[in-house]
């Protein structure tokens, strides 16, 4: 029981880091534009396929290191395309954005099915990632440790960007009050675009991590994106701290619930947990202060 608990605790942290990588981009652009990109899960998928393609060209340990920037740039470019071609035109209609980007998601999934096949492709993890450590009766697979490390690095990088750079200052300003930010001369659309690309890139990077864990299939993003949506719902508008906290809570909850019930019941419990949570804190884990009434 004890080692099962510790094992699930570790799995929870690993799951939380994947939820976090998938949800960060969603949460950032939701805070800025109040829209959700339903095709965000396909950025994970794209990252996974780009990792596979990179490893075809450059096999071995160097490949996986190279795959991370390739997936980041590829997914960021795709995100930028979706943002400028579609989402920007719909920015005042959040629910319509949801539907239009769902259309994009369907097309991307089917395109992946036609290009790479429905079964999916396997990325062979390099040797230094395929082993595992034993610590006090708990198995820690290297790949999962690596993912936790990457998530922590991404988080630290984003925090530095938001708190220490000029673009971060602009992002925080638009997040707090879009109208006022625009009135003082900030190009809010450029801020939107930059953050959207960045968030998609992070999702692409998360896709490389998924590729280390299992085969990349056309709907690999779907199994992580719905929990990631719940992370955004629970996190609070556009707050990185809130998103991180809610990813950790939900990741741990999902993993620990699986000690007592099977995966499908755990999924139902996760939803019930989120609904109960918003009874207590409808504004999310962290509420960004704003003077807007209809936030």
């Amino acid at each position: 029981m004890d080692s099962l608990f510790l094992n699930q605790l570790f799995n929870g942290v690993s799951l939380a880091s994947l939820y976090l990588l998938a949800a960060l981009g969603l949460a950032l652009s939701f805070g800025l534009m109040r829209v959700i990109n339903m095709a965000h899960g396909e950025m994970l998928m794209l990252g996974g396929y780009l990792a596979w393609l990179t490893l075809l060209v450059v096999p071995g340990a160097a490949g996986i290191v190279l795959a991370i920037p390739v997936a980041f740039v590829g997914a960021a470019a795709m995100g930028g395309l979706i943002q400028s071609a579609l989402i920007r035109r719909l920015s005042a209609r959040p629910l319509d954005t949801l539907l239009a980007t769902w259309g994009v998601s369907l097309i991307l999934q089917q395109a992946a099915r036609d290009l790479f096949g429905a079964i999916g492709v396997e990325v062979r993890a390099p040797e230094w990632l395929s082993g595992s450590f034993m610590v006090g009766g708990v198995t820690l697979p290297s790949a999962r440790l690596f993912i936790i490390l990457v998530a922590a690095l991404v988080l630290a990088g984003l925090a530095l960007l938001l708190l220490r750079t000029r673009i971060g200052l602009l992002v925080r300003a638009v997040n707090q009050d879009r109208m006022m930010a625009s009135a003082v001369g900030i190009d809010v659309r450029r801020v939107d675009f930059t953050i959207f690309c960045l968030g998609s890139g992070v999702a692409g990077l998360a896709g490389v991590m998924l590729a280390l864990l299992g085969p990349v299939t056309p709907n690999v993003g779907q199994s992580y994106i719905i929990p990631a949506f719940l992370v955004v719902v629970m996190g609070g508008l556009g707050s990185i701290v809130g998103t991180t906290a809610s990813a950790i809570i939900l990741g741990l909850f999902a993993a620990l619930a699986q000690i007592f019930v099977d995966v499908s019941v755990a999924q139902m419990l996760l939803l019930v947990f989120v609904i109960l949570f918003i009874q207590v804190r409808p504004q999310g884990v962290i509420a960004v202060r704003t003077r807007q009434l209809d936030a």
Partner: protein
Amino acid sequence: MPDLSRFQAARPALPWLLLGLAVAAPFALSAYDLNLLARFMAMAILALGLVLIWGHGGILSLGQGVFFGLGGYAIAMHMKLSDLPQGEIPDFMLWSGRESLPFWWTPFASPVFTLAAILIVPMLVGALFSWAVFHRRVGGTYFALITQALALAFSTLIISRQDVTGGFNGLTDFYSIFGFGLASPGTGPGLYWVTLAILCAAFVGLRWLLASRFGILLRAARDGENRVRFLGYSPTPFKVVAFAIAALLAGVGGALFTLHAGVVSPALIGVVPSIEMVVWVAIGGRYSLAGAIVGALLVNLARDAVSSAFPELWLYLMGALFIFVVTLLPQGLAGLAKGKGA
């Protein structure tokens, strides 16, 4: 142009003409086509509910499949039990090693209980679920995401409980409903007319509801929820009642669909089918009841035609339809018709 004005004069007669054609359809269509039309009409009943909550209430639900499924599984459980000799349990339960009926299956042997369950269970679940979210003033995008999570959780739960739900294959192989053999010649048209009558009743009922004070307040809450609060109304009960009615219509639609299709399964009620239901209404016109019916019929007709020949093409087409309708035609076909007619 004289021809056009004559067409204009005939416009009020158009709904009656269509109704007449719909009533006479069993005499003109083959049994297969009639069954297809009846299925699509059952889906149109669900679509009407989406006009109420999405078009007029501004509540986007990506989980209507859940309520559709609750109605569908209720009637399917009844048919499974009524086809069996006393004391036996459905075959799929035997195959998965069960020896007795789960307690919550037992009351579905009664037709009265089943009919009540079809009406009450989806409505109650819809009311409780939406109240839990709306009364804390969570709505909009958040609500849509939560309903999608609901659709995912519901369909995975059904798939994983193979021994009591039939799992991925769902429930199928029905022979009779309330004593009428499903294969006997009169049953098809009879069920079709029942579906048509319910569709018409739902249409007329919702038209009245949307024109009433309730409809006005619902639209007001959609356009300015806080203004409605400042005027002294709480928007929550209006939104909850609207959502419960939409859930009821989805449940009834699901039960009728299951009768016509002869099957209910997770593949018909999960995340993707739930969002497809929204596309029917998006294409028909989210503000228009008539548009939603037309949308549900047309999209499903197109789906049937395209996906039997080119299954991959359908997903591209549906994705493109989503993008096209939402960006360029937010009022759907109904908006086009209005623009031409006025």
